[in-house]
């Protein structure tokens, strides 16, 4: 493999037979990196697992040139870092990519560190930005001291370093090209299953209970919703769209929600992909905590409410008349679809 030295690998995260979101963000990074390395190599997605994964060819629309798939029953268990690492390291030994990109999760932190140890190369976590200088040396930026400071690392290791990006910096990728990626099956080689940690059970967090700072979707209710039983409609909407429930300060003052669920200047700062603001006027002390959300929906009876200045979609309506209908429709939609694909 002559051009192999310049190949950029990205590790595909998949679940229940479908590729997960952060993977697409990696393709953009990989393409950018390939360009700065001279453009010769292939953007290669690597899939480790057992059983079919849908949409691998379609990764070509996002810029992947080929997909290497190791489908082996020894990879049936999720999160077995020791087994996956040996599979990945073996593959990398054979192909010799320029580097391996991952989206940082609990899983890849484990996998990345183990693979780097096996390959005797560098593992850089929490990366926010990756650049290549004129000499082809990688430079990574990452936050330290809780984000107070940033450090810049120079990666001089000649072997394929493993880079884990903070998921928050991975931009969403929109499919662009029409070319499908080439899918190649690879073998796993001799890896024994003995020893190591085993996964006994995977417990799903109830999205409604998820820490609002971590949540992808937040449904926030304000004084306009009302207290106690009136607030149930917010929980219902959150359930319907897998959102996490939050409130403005009056809601917390009424003890309808606990303080951990307050958004704002004296509460938490959230940056979800979607926030639905229900019955919220949009005081500066509130918006200080949610301005950075990607998509903002507001529902309020008062068309002059300040919250509409932040809204991508504003609905002038009474919460208690609009939301029950909306929830019914969403719940009905959900009834026909597999649970994981119910997001909209």
């Amino acid at each position, binding site marked *: 493999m002559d051009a192999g030295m310049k190949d950029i690998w990205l590790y595909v995260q998949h679940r229940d037979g479908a590729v997960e979101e952060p993977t697409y963000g990696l393709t953009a990074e990989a393409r950018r990196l390939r360009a700065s390395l001279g453009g010769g190599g292939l953007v290669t997605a690597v899939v480790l697992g057992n059983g079919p994964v849908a949409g691998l060819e379609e990764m070509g629309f996002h810029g992947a040139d080929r997909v290497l798939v190791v489908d082996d029953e020894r990879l049936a268990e999720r999160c077995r870092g020791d087994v996956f690492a040996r599979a990945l390291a073996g593959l990398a030994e054979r192909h010799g990519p320029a580097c391996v990109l991952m989206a940082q999760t609990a899983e890849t932190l484990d996998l990345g560190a183990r693979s780097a140890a096996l390959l005797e190369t560098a593992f850089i976590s929490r990366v926010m930005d990756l650049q290549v200088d004129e000499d082809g040396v990688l430079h990574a930026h990452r936050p330290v001291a809780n984000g*107070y400071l940033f450090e810049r690392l120079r990666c001089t290791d000649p072997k394929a370093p493993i880079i884990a990006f903070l998921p928050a910096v991975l931009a969403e990728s929109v499919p662009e090209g029409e070319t499908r990626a080439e899918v190649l099956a690879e073998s796993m080689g001799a890896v024994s299953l003995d020893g190591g940690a085993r996964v006994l059970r995977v417990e799903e967090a109830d999205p409604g209970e998820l820490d609002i700072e971590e949540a992808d979707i937040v449904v926030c209710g304000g004084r306009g919703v009302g207290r106690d039983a009136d607030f149930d409609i917010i929980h219902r909407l959150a359930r319907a769209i897998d959102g996490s429930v939050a409130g403005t300060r009056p809601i917390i003052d009424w003890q309808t929600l606990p303080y951990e669920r307050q958004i704002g200047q004296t509460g938490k*700062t959230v940056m979800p992909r979607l926030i639905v603001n229900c019955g919220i006027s949009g005081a*500066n002390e509130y918006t200080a905590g949610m301005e950075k959300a990607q998509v903002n929906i507001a529902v309020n009876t008062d068309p002059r409410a300040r919250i509409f200045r932040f809204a991508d979609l504003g609905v002038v309506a009474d919460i208690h008349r609009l939301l029950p209908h909306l929830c019914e429709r969403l719940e009905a939609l959900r009834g026909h679809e597999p649970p994981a694909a119910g997001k909209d």
Partner: protein
Amino acid sequence: MLTTALDYILVLAAVIVMLAGFARRPARVRQVVEESRRPADFGYFLSYILGHGRIVGGRPLAGIAHLAVFWGVGLPLVVIAFAQFPLVLPAGIAGLLSLVMDVLGLVVLAAGVYFLIRRLTSAPDLGAPRRVVVPLLLLLVIVLSGFVVEGARLRLTAAGYAWQSPVGWCCSSVLPASPLLMQAALRFHFFAVLLFVVLLPFTFMRHLLAASLNVLYRDRGHRGALTPAAGVVTENALLAGDRLFDAGQLLELDACVACGRCAENCPAALAGKVLNPRRVVQNLARCLEAAPVPAGGNIDASRLADAVSAEEMWACTGCMACVEHCPVLVRPLVKVIGLRRHEVQMHGRMPAEAVPMIRNLEIYGDVDGRGCAHRGDWAHGLDVPHLSERDVDAEMLLWVGCQGAFHPRYREVLRELVKILRAGGVRFGILGTEERCCGDAARRLGDENLFLSLARENMDVFNKYGVRRIVAVCPHGYNTLKNEYRELGADFEVWHAVECIADLIRNRRVTLRYPLEKSLAIHDPCYLGRVNGIYEPLRTVVRAVPGVRLTELPRNRERALCCGGGAGRMWLHEKPGQSINQLRAREIRECGVEAVGAACPFCLTMLEDGIGSLELESPPRVLDIVEIVAASMAD
């Protein structure tokens, strides 16, 4: 009259024990003089002690009782001391003196009983010491035995007239004519006095010395200016070291008489938060007392810091009510800030909600993290000159502040202010992107280094443009620039916008024409009122607006209740208990006014939020004085 040599020896011994008990004080005082550079202020001390104004102040009854005991004990003491010398007074004067002493005895008796009842019936949990009961009882014993001596003497000698010692005369009528009784009562009286003297340093009565010293060596700096902690200020940073308080602060701890006036006026205590300034000071004082005195008189900071919980120290709103009302010039607020500094600078602990704001200040130089590039955006389209422009014609710098630059409501207030200043012919400019947060919130949240770095950046810009006069809209910025930048070499005048406006109105440079037909009350912002003594300009300005019916809130001026937003509390979560802003909002509602006028961005937000949470049919409107004036101005 002392008779035997033994008596003199006893007196001497008592005085020696007393002095030994006070042995720690001279060292502390020396330290105060040397390290805090506070000279004795005899003039103030005399007017304080003779006039008793500060003690009577907020609590007339207790204050007058104190005045009574002070003179009732002090004067007889002087008379008795003189009686040791063979002086002969004219009969008339001697008789008058005797009458005065007699009446004073009665007054002390009444006051003593009053104090005793007060202390015994007060809530025991708040750090009010019971130690005061012993000396009080002793005092009563001294007075009563004095009357018995007098009565027995009169019974035996029947000298003098009834009018000269009415109480003694009454006593004499019920006492037997017994020389033994008189002698016994005399000795009893004498020993009681000796005991009182011996106990001075060990009971509550030590406040006689401790409080007096605190008043004598009072801090003469401006009350609004925090000082750069007891650490070492180096070129770039403050090294907090292991010292939490300087000597002057420790002197204050000794002086606290646990009267609870601070707590009575503390918004946090009133709202039922854990903070109680009296308990803070008393707990610190107790710690100080228990600690051995190391060389140099400094005591381990962490020991003191442990005496106060984090929840207590973060509940303070910096409103200065405790400082205003303390009769012996203790400043609980400064203790609280000292403790916060220790918590932040030594341990890096701060409530989680405040961390993003501090980080914004560190990275962007403003509390909202908008960045200095946007700091001038509020003035868009107004053509306000920047001091950086060439040929700028400005007599004053308009200090905008983070709220003026970024808070949606306060940006409008600033635009109105520009209108008013222009109408008044004031030539002013702004710093635009070169302004940074003044550092008030950072400093009061305990991040002294951050304050210093922000203040230095601002000072550099002031010096660059040779700024001589500043007008600020935010009372916090006003106070910080005026009183705290001095230590960094500031040498400029600072005005608050309301003072400026009052001036313009007085000189008829702006005319107010359009009426505001509303009943309106003034909410005195702490950092204008208590901290800087600006009360009247707010009222002058509002009175100049036609149609306004000005009323006063029950708690106004020095006693005004804080909105709850000072000392960084704008960024801290209010723990359950009452919200301070709702407490104030209720006072405003009960006053029945249609609007309330404030002159502070934090007050505005706090009151608006507090009144909003009452969910009234027609809530009183919250207006900034600047808005009121702008609306009434003739175009």
